[in-house]
């Protein structure tokens, strides 16, 4: 009973991807055409498989699992860690990781590093708070993955709400708390210094970032991502309110510890800050945290300022087409943020905090003013 109800609920709200879920025209002979069954229909009558397939292609779960969710994050992680090393190498006239897979330019280098981490000893040092030390890296995935629930990618979405952008910003703002807790549980002086730096940076960027996002929500008159993207169909938000875009951009660099604001985990000063005591696969998990946060914030940045999933519609991709446009925009942003590593030095903590509390905050107020002006003039 329950099984059938669930199955029909899944089938009512399937993702529409022509080359996967539609009938495929195999060949045409004279007047008669022969169609191949789509993947979902092939297993329509097999008891367990049809349920699993329907669940996977059910809209909310598809959004969480594939795009913009887990698989997309893994794709970004797999490529960007390699690309970061490779871009740095190119700028420094080197090759970067290469020999592990010479024909494809060493792109599986992060995989080798991951395998090495997986089979390395996990050390929990004596001074650490053992349960929290091991729990927090896993708990940190909650605030990273939960924003995906409210960030839609075209027709692929989990929850549609008029408060999508505020909810996503609020959830992303929880990540530094996990980092601070990690530093506290490590109970080491370098981890402690790193956590304190994270706290200072957190207050320096978070207020400006929230104000900039709210300025755009005010300007568009809604926090619903669908409304926001639809209103940008002619002019992207970056042209309407460039101040808000600048503030959000800089705040993202500060929030994800990219250069020139790589202050919390400055490896030449405080040896990776909060993560200094982590070894093995747990370090592999916490190291990716900043990249995941960067991906989420890049999604928000492209939805708020770059027209979200607006782009030429590709028929044979169906619902995937806007999602892929959003992914491409976010990925390009991630690459830009990561490229900063090769060209910038690192600010001191006091310089970054001063910038956050003075010029960044002032700019965010200007952007809020611009947003209010646009809203009251009713240009949208």
């Amino acid at each position, binding site marked *: 009973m329950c099984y059938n109800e669930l199955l029909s609920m899944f089938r009512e709200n399937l993702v529409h991807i022509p080359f996967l879920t539609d009938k495929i025209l195999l060949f045409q002979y004279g007047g008669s055409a022969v169609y191949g069954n789509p993947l979902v229909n092939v297993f329509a009558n097999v008891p367990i498989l049809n349920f699993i397939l329907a669940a996977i292609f059910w809209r909310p779960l598809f959004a969480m699992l594939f795009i913009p969710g887990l698989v997309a994050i893994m794709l970004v992680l797999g490529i960007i860690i390699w690309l970061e090393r490779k871009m740095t190498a190119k700028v420094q006239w080197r090759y970067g990781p290469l020999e592990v897979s010479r024909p494809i330019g060493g792109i599986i280098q992060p995989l080798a590093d991951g395998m090495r981490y997986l089979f390395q000893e996990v050390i929990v040092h004596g001074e650490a708070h053992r349960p929290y030390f091991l729990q927090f890296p896993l708990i940190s995935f909650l605030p990273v993955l939960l924003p995906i629930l409210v960030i839609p990618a075209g027709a692929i979405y989990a929850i549609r709400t008029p408060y999508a952008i505020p909810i996503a910003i609020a959830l992303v703002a929880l990540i530094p708390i996990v980092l601070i807790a990690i530093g506290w549980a490590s109970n080491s002086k370098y981890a402690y210094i790193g956590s304190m730096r994270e706290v200072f940076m957190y207050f320096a960027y978070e207020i400006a970032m929230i104000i900039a996002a709210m300025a755009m929500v005010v300007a568009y008159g809604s926090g619903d991502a669908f409304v926001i993207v639809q209103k940008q169909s002619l002019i992207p938000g970056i042209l309407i309110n460039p101040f808000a875009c600048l503030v959000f951009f800089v705040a993202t660099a500060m929030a994800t510890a990219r250069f020139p604001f790589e202050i919390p985990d400055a490896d030449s000063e405080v040896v990776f800050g909060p993560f200094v005591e982590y070894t093995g696969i747990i*370090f592999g998990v916490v190291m990716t945290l900043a990249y995941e946060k960067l991906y989420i914030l890049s999604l928000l940045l492209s939805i708020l300022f770059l027209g979200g999933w607006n782009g030429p519609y590709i028929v044979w991709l169906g619902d995937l087409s806007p999602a892929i446009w959003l992914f491409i925009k976010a990925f390009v942003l991630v690459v830009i943020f990561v490229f900063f590593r090769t060209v910038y030095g690192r600010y001191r903590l006091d310089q970054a905090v001063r910038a956050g509390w003075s010029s960044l905050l002032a700019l965010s107020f200007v952007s809020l003013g611009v947003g209010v002006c646009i809203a009251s003039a009713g240009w949208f």
Partner: protein
Amino acid sequence: MNDPNIKNIKFLHSGLLSPVKKWGAKWSLWAVHLVTSCCGVELAHTYASGYDAERWGTLNFGMMRQTNLIIVEGTISKKMAKALRMTWEQMPDPKFVIVMGACGLEGGLFWNSYHIVKPSEIVPVDYFVPGCPPTPEGLMRGILALQKKIESGEAKATAKYQPVRLEEVLEIKEVKERKPPKSPVKIAEKPEIKIEPRDVEWEFGKSFVDELNQKLAGAGEAFITDVNRVYIRTTKERFLEVAEKLSEDFDHVKSVNVIDVIHEDKFIVEYTVSSYSSKELMPVLVTISAEIPRSNPRFPSVIDIWPSADYQEREMYDFFGVWFENNPAMGEKFLIAPEVETPLRKDFKIPQPNYVLGGESE
């Protein structure tokens, strides 16, 4: 089995997943670089443009928890041995060690030094890279050899050197037996602390010292040692009398100093005083000194006359064990650990830590 070197390789070669383990370890040798001497420059070369060892997936790091390889760059002194051992112990298994340079191999330039340790006695070394310093190609060869070792499970030397007899090469008929020079040890039999009057052009000082000698009236002997420097020699019994007289002009103690003259079985205690209140006396430093026997190191404290001597007297108690009577804080140590006794005395024995492999570490 207890050999960590064999244990690491055994771990990588056991189980169903051993191909994955080997592959991961082979292509991800992240090196924590322990720069102890000039080989560090060659390591920088190895990872910089031109040679770029990152091509093989190795990445040099400044920390040990996230890495699996130590590259020891050069000489390991007894002090650095502790750091090397700690670094090695903090790294997660499986871990490897490469030692660069002649110093790490046999001592190199410092082969007969009193303060050199061979890294192979402290950590299990996988590969040595000889050379002084080894070239970047040499270090890269070491890394590649380690990769081969991880894959095949057995360590093979990548180069074999033929012993060369210099007599045959240079066609020398008579071979003089050559002995290495002895390490130069210079010990003065009876070093003296010489403090003598000096004739310098300092008009104010001459009249000032004359006045001072009249004022002291035999309690101490004052003389000029340099421009603006006056020395007063006195005894322990009359020290407070001299200090009392000087305190009219001089208002604070700049430093308290103890010299251990072990061959004459005495300490020299020196107080250097100066003035902030009188303008012409501001540049003048007056040192009052007295000798006390080593067997009974007690000295009257000047804390009642110059309170600024308090901390410095306590310091001297920490370092030399000289007891300053009447100083209320005497007896508790505030600079060094309470279990350490008089570390600056000449006969203090430096504890020798033992970080040799297999031994107990701290």
